[in-house]
């Protein structure tokens, strides 16, 4: 069946996803980072943020986090998120029956 399809039909049959989907796992990492950062900073404030040192480290940490996120945003500015990712599944010619192993 695969050999009967033209090259264009084969490409169309391949799984295609929006490139913007790659932002989902990144957003999950950022969310995890934000929650853990909040917990750590809360711990410091609750148990001893009255010193200059813990204040300085907390400030450095927050500044560093902002720097990482800003740099990421800056470097990704020209990205076309509407482009499609083509995921090639070997042996899959577009007909779902191809996936059934007899």
């Amino acid at each position, binding site marked *: 069946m695969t050999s009967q399809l033209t090259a264009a039909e084969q490409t169309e049959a391949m799984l295609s996803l929006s490139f913007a989907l790659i932002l989902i796992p990144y957003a999950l990492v950022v969310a995890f980072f934000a929650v853990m950062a909040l917990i750590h900073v809360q711990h*410091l404030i609750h148990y*001893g943020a009255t010193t200059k040192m*813990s204040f300085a*480290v*907390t400030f450095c*940490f927050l500044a560093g986090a902002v720097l990482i996120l800003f740099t990421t945003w800056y470097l990704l500015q020209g990205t076309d998120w509407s482009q499609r*990712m083509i995921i090639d599944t070997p042996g899959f010619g577009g007909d779902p029956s191809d996936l059934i192993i007899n």
Partner: protein
Amino acid sequence: MNLELLNLIRMNKDERVIFFLRRHFIIFIGELLYVAVLGIIPIGALFLVGNMWPTLLDGAMSRPTIILVASAYYLIIWLFFIGSFVDYYLDAWVVTDQRVLNVEQNGIFARTISELDLGRVQDVTSEVNGLIPSLFRFGHVYIQTAGEKERFVFEQVPRPHEVRKRLLEMVEADQQRSGAVFLEEMQKAKPNEGK
């Protein structure tokens, strides 16, 4: 009194703090170096990829993917940095003229505070083991308690030998004080016995 100490423990009215110890600062510097090494790895990898597959860094999809992966990696490293600091900073040992307190932060959600009366201290051992501890003068102080297998350990504290010496003096003073109070009570009790 130190505000920071008030946040960590609840002090008695007549209690006096003798030592407030944390791990030696060089321990945190070591963690910082570890973070720095982890931070350099992607730069090296980028250099390597740039030489081997130069087109990969300019691809319409590969470039943003690499940036996002690197960004996620750096965020995790940064989290590791603050986690190390919290772990370093919230572990503390307090010696007062009445007791010894061990405040330990294990990860984010586990915090253990244990205390020991000075009268229960049987033996104190200090240990400086290795090149870096000898250079920076830090080590462990082990406190053996009466009737317990487990020991109190002050980990990687600065000047452990001085801490041990002062702690033993404190224990001796506490024992003398307790002995004097006991004798006083006995003398008070004696006249009442005859009545």
